[in-house]
């Protein structure tokens, strides 16, 4: 069984969270185990260093355990954990970058690899369409990619996206709308071109 499947939803998370806050080690262990994959995968978008990401998650949970008496009972667990990990990684990374004197221009890190699973693709038109959609996703700016990832692949709503990315909810909506708009506009224009290319060359 895949451990990430242990995570059977929000209500279960909230129950575990409350048990953990009261000092329940078993609940703490379950909480960490069930969120580990999601956090790890999210972490890989900001760094390629697998071990470092694991360390960050470990530190995050250690700190949660130490501060459990000061934490709120009423939180959405998954977005809270993702936000904490993101903040932790960015904090450390910005320090690294400061010492390297790298310009601040490419502050926003988010490397993601979209892919098309072949087993679903049976027709030529599906093949063309799916390659197209991948290209369009790949060409989005990083912040828009992150919003798309959180919204469509992590099932986060606008408020949760805002919490995680530390932006205003309105900004999250705007980013999402821009991204979708871009995906659709380009689709219409370029799809036809590619479709033609595909059949004539």
């Amino acid at each position: 069984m895949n451990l990430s499947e242990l995570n059977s939803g929000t209500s279960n998370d909230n129950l575990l969270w409350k048990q953990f806050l009261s000092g329940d080690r078993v609940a703490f262990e379950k909480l960490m185990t069930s969120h580990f994959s999601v956090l790890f995968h999210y972490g890989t978008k900001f760094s390629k260093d697998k071990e470092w990401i694991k360390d960050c998650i470990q530190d995050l949970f250690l700190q949660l355990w130490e501060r459990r008496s000061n934490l709120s009972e009423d939180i959405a667990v998954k977005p809270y954990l993702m936000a904490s990990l993101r903040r932790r990684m960015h904090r450390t990374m910005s320090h690294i970058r400061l010492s390297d004197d790298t310009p601040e221009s490419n502050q926003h890190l988010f490397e993601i690899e979209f892919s098309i699973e072949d087993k679903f693709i049976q027709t030529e038109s599906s093949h063309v369409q799916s390659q197209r959609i991948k290209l369009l996703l790949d060409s989005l700016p990083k912040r828009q990619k992150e919003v798309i990832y959180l919204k469509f692949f992590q099932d986060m709503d606008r408020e949760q996206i805002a919490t995680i990315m530390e932006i205003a909810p309105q900004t999250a909506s705007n980013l999402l709308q821009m991204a979708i708009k871009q995906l659709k506009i380009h689709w219409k224009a370029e799809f036809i071109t590619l479709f033609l290319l595909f059949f004539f060359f």
Partner: protein
Amino acid sequence: MKKYLEYDIEDFVWDDYFRQWVLIPTRESDNFWKNWIVQYPEKAKLIEDARTLVKALKVNEQSLSDQEIQNVVRHTLELAEEKEAAENFEQPGFISINRKFWIQAAAAVAILVGLSWGVKTNFVPKNSVNVSYEKLVSNTSSLLTETLNEHENPLPVKLSDGSLVILTKGSRISYPKTFSGSKREVFLSGEAFFEVTKNPEKPFLVYANGLITKVLGTSFRVRAYESDKDVTVEVKTGRVSVFAQSDPKIKEKATNRELEGVVLTPNQKIIYAREDVRLTKSLVEAPVMIATEKSKQSFEFEDTPVSEVLLAIEKAYSVDIVFDEELLANCPLTASLTDLQLFEKLNIICKGVEARYEILDGQIVIYSKGCKQ
């Protein structure tokens, strides 16, 4: 649901309700879409294509085995328990330096820098403390991991904060598995190069044979063999402050602003004479250009005033060069210095204009009588 009639394939692909049905269908959504297709059979192909796309589109994720997850989780639980156990013990005096101390230490350092700081060590009792590696390590309350390099090759050690220590043969370092509290403290016996992850909120401290090196994030080398009379610290990047750890009342001394601290900048080194507790600042043997300057610097000069040449060098190596600017402005130099070490560069320059140089207190001082035109 009329709006779906207008939809093209990409509208479906990014539609919440449609995606939910494809990925996690409920009886309600399944009924809805099946009815919709019955109602608009001409859209069936479109719906099928959109479904395919939603299903096929994935994010490539790095694999992570359940075993790996369990290892980290187990380790985290162990650490959590260790920490709770450790909280029941008191920290020994000289290690538990609080945050306030750092602010005061920083102030003290700021005051001392700029002053000449030669032999101002009289407040340090000579033989008062046991600052040997073994003593320090056994006096620490937190659980330490020790790494010893028994091999010929330098051994890289990664610390939990991402910092890197490259341990020279025969050297050992002790460090906590994770850094808790307001400082990152490690203990060194022997020689190592440090590349410290920047974190101004958590100073990084190297305790080595009585010398404390404090940094916020930088790279530097510490040489502190038990058998050697001296401890040396050489700075590669960033700023480092060092001070002697020779007093059990270091905390009070700090409050009195009497703590001796010396700030080192790139290419400077400090030599700490253990016996007479004396610190001497100098330059490293082969200063290197700081990374950001390396790419844009050319050291090809044609009839350039020596003063300009020296300023360029000063900037590239981030070292202080003391010279009479007016005097040397009249000395033209034609030389190709690009591939030379700093001291080779200086030798050529000095030969060219009949000057000489000296390293004094971590600075380069140029003596010259100027040039007759």
